[in-house]
């Protein structure tokens, strides 16, 4: 179906203009413009005062405009191994957690897509429901489960699998678990969307031609669901790289993640320019995945 503009909009030119301009202005002012300000402040110096950064543009005598760019913050990111390690570790943790999310989410989405028609919506709602309850509180729930004398250790001791409580909380394991738990619905939903749209006659044809089900799964189902895999992975990976709450509450003091570093630069060290430089570096890292995600979304829409 070709995209047609609605007739009331076609005839009502001024209205059409307003409809597009209002959200465009809002997002431009409160979402687009701030990124330029972040870049600008990442290039200024830290000063004591409020706001705690130096002005970038200065009128010097004779009406000349001088621009002072200060790349020291970016040099710091490059030289101090703390930042580079945090970036590498964030990408590694996010990538591993995304993979685990896919391994758990794919069978779930497949199970829902192949369930009886009347069961699909309730099953889907059950996946979405935890997403509606507070993220912070769901992360908090894991503290009670994972801590030294928590539920998980008590159960494991009771079964007799372990003799001593395991250190589960404040580990990288807990961070991975938290990300998989928090972002699982974001993986299942796009996977379900592609899997439920899949033409089941393809699988029947494969079976008729003598293809074993496991082979049909890898050769037919998985390739067909590629847009869902990609969209789900990006929806988990990109926010997970910058995640703050999970590494802060479930990770240990040595869990270096960039969201946590940015937070502590800003709130503990009160170093706004360095925090802005960390944000710019994170944006540069994420710009390719974000654009890829945007292209997927555009293509997924029927025209």
């Amino acid at each position, binding site marked *: 179906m070709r995209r047609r*503009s*609605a*007739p*009331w*909009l076609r*005839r*009502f030119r001024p209205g059409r203009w307003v*409809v*597009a301009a*209002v*959200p*465009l202005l*809002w*997002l*431009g002012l*409160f*979402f*687009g*413009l*701030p*990124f330029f*300000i*972040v870049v600008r402040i990442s290039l200024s110096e830290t000063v004591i005062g409020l706001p705690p950064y130096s002005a970038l543009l200065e009128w010097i005598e004779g009406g000349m405009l001088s621009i002072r760019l200060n790349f020291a913050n970016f040099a710091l990111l490059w030289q101090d191994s703390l930042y580079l390690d945090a970036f590498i570790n964030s990408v590694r943790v996010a990538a591993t957690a995304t993979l685990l999310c896919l391994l*758990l989410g794919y*069978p*779930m989405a*497949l*199970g*829902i897509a192949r369930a009886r028609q009347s069961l699909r919506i309730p099953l889907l709602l*059950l*996946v979405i429901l*935890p997403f509606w*309850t*507070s993220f912070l*509180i769901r992360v*908090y*729930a894991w503290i*009670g489960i994972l*801590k030294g004398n928590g539920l998980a250790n*008590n159960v494991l001791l009771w079964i007799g699998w372990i003799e001593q409580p395991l250190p589960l909380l404040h580990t990288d394991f807990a961070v991975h678990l938290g990300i998989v*738990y928090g972002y699982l619905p974001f993986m299942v939903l796009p996977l379900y969307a592609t899997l439920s749209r899949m033409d089941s006659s393809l699988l029947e044809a494969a079976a008729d031609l003598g293809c074993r089900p*496991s082979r*049909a*799964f890898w050769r037919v189902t998985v390739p067909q669901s590629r847009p869902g895999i990609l969209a789900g992975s990006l*929806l988990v990976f*990109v*926010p997970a*790289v*910058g995640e703050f*709450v999970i590494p802060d509450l479930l990770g240990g003091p040595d869990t270096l993640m960039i*969201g946590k570093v*940015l*937070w502590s630069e800003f709130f503990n060290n009160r170093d706004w320019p360095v*925090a802005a430089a960390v*944000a710019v570096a994170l944006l540069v890292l994420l710009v390719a995945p*974000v654009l890829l*995600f*945007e292209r997927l979304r*555009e293509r997924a*829409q029927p025209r």
Partner: protein
Amino acid sequence: MNGKRPSLVFSLLAFGYAFLYAPIVSLIVYSFNESRLVTVWAGFSTKWYVSLLHNDQLLGAAWVSLRIAVMNATLAVVLGALAATALVRFGRFRGRPALALMVGAPLVMPDVILGLASLLLFVAMEQLIGWPAGRGMTTITIAHVTFSLAYVAVIVQSRLVRQDPSLEEAAMDLGARPWKVFFVITLPLIAPALAAGWLLAFTLSLDDLVIASFVSGPGASTLPMVVYSSVRLGISPEINALATVLVVLVTSGIAIAGWLLHRREARRQLAE
């Protein structure tokens, strides 16, 4: 993952649901625990709910959060519906790529970046034009609208795409004016999507810790900010009680919304 044995798929599905719900169930169970030690069961008690009722700090923060969430959801639905209409029904126009990007990006952008960027904008605006003076509920609401309108737009977009414009065309051909077509035809058709978007924007705002922490000021602590600072000090059964109240409220809210939508849909099918 083997297509031949669907039982494997279904047992993994069951495992997935257990994984999703076990922490929530344990949270609720321990909210009724007598002992302050969350992990040691010492008998049934509702005392944490009583002490929750007397925790003025938490209740005050909940009131702040609630007001922000309502303002945010209402503004986000209006702006998100406008953005979705422009993206779905206008074909190609000059601002479209920018609009599509700015609607899509907040869905995946890490919170810390959104929070820092919004704060730096508010500080710069205050220096330049003196507004917003200081930070508090207004700045939190603006920052929340900016990212939750993206979620609303996605929901409304998927509804508009599925909807045939011929109904609107017919009304136009019969001489209805554009605003009348919108309010009589388009709005009722996208109303379920608007309701879902409002609820989602409401919970997103109620849930946000990171962005609110950046753009908040003295005197405007939201519920997640207070919960976070008490969680940092260790677990407390009071938070479990609060979590249980929230889970019950959200679940019943969604159940009622789902039931209303279902009834509406059933009536429409009956009418056809």
